[in-house]
């Protein structure tokens, strides 16, 4: 099945999960469009995935250099027009560094790189990427990160809570010491979502712990259709 929808997947030097993200887009019924970090053209895509990895070797801070790559100027502009953007792991870090999402991701408490299957609770279903879930639904997806501890000041946290912008919380244990068990958040308009765990690795029982992650990619197809 294909919907005719085109979803861009960005590759920076050091990106690892662009291939899996493109595969998840394809499983959801859309056409993945490979976008290179050095280009200024989004090629007319309907939504954008900023995948995980170690862009620019995580030099300076995770996501800091990537956040000012040429393609990100276009991503920031597109987000301003309401184009759905999903940042996964390093992609989440990049979206925070680019100012599309508040807060920051810092070194895990205890310093351990955490690689395991992680339960998540869906807290908000009003975003472009979670409309197909039910509130309180639990997902099982892999997490693999060393700098995944979400932090924000008290005012920002209160605002995220009040505006229902905490999208995912860790369930069954906080893997990195993240503030308020936060695994993922959304922009004020709900079009931009970032999360540390990897839904693109949980779309096929052959290669992942569940197929729960596919819901993000199918949700955005509905969101883009209703926006069109």
């Amino acid at each position, binding site marked *: 099945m294909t919907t005719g929808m085109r979803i861009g997947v960005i590759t920076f030097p050091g990106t690892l999960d662009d291939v899996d993200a493109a595969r998840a887009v394809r499983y959801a019924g859309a056409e993945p469009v490979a976008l290179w970090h050095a280009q200024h053209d989004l090629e007319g895509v309907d939504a954008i995935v900023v995948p995980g990895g170690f862009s620019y070797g995580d030099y300076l801070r995770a996501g*800091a250099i990537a956040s000012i790559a040429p393609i990100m100027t276009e991503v920031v502009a597109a987000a301003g027009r309401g184009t759905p953007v999903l940042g996964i792991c390093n992609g989440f870090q990049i979206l925070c560094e680019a100012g599309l999402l508040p807060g*920051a991701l810092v*070194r*895990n*408490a205890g*310093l351990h790189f955490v690689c395991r299957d992680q339960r998540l609770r869906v807290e908000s279903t009003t975003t472009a990427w979670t409309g197909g879930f039910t509130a309180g639904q639990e997902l099982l997806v892999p997490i693999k990160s060393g700098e995944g501890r979400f932090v924000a*000041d008290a005012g920002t946290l209160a605002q995220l809570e009040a505006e229902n912008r905490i999208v995912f919380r860790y369930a069954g244990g906080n893997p990195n*010491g993240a503030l308020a068990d936060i695994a993922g958040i959304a922009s004020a308009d709900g079009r931009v979502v970032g999360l540390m765990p990897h839904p693109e690795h949980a779309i096929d029982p052959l290669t992942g712990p569940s197929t729960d992650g596919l819901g993000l990619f199918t949700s955005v197809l509905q969101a883009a259709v209703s926006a069109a």
Partner: protein
Amino acid sequence: MHVAKVVVDVMPKPEILDPQGQAVAGALTRLGVAGVGDVRQGKHFVLEVDDSVDDETLERVAATLLANPVIEDWVVTRA
């Protein structure tokens, strides 16, 4: 053109947990060094800049790239 050295020191904000600093503090204990209470780890940048770079530009360099204002404080010093 005259070239000067500028130093930018970046530190995690006091309220941000610094597990790397804690690990260093723990290692000092294992080394047999007593009396070091807390360690916090930051970054030290040395920039070579010419006369065309004013203080306002240096502040922008620090605030937008060298440091993340959400989690870090910084000090710019012309050496």
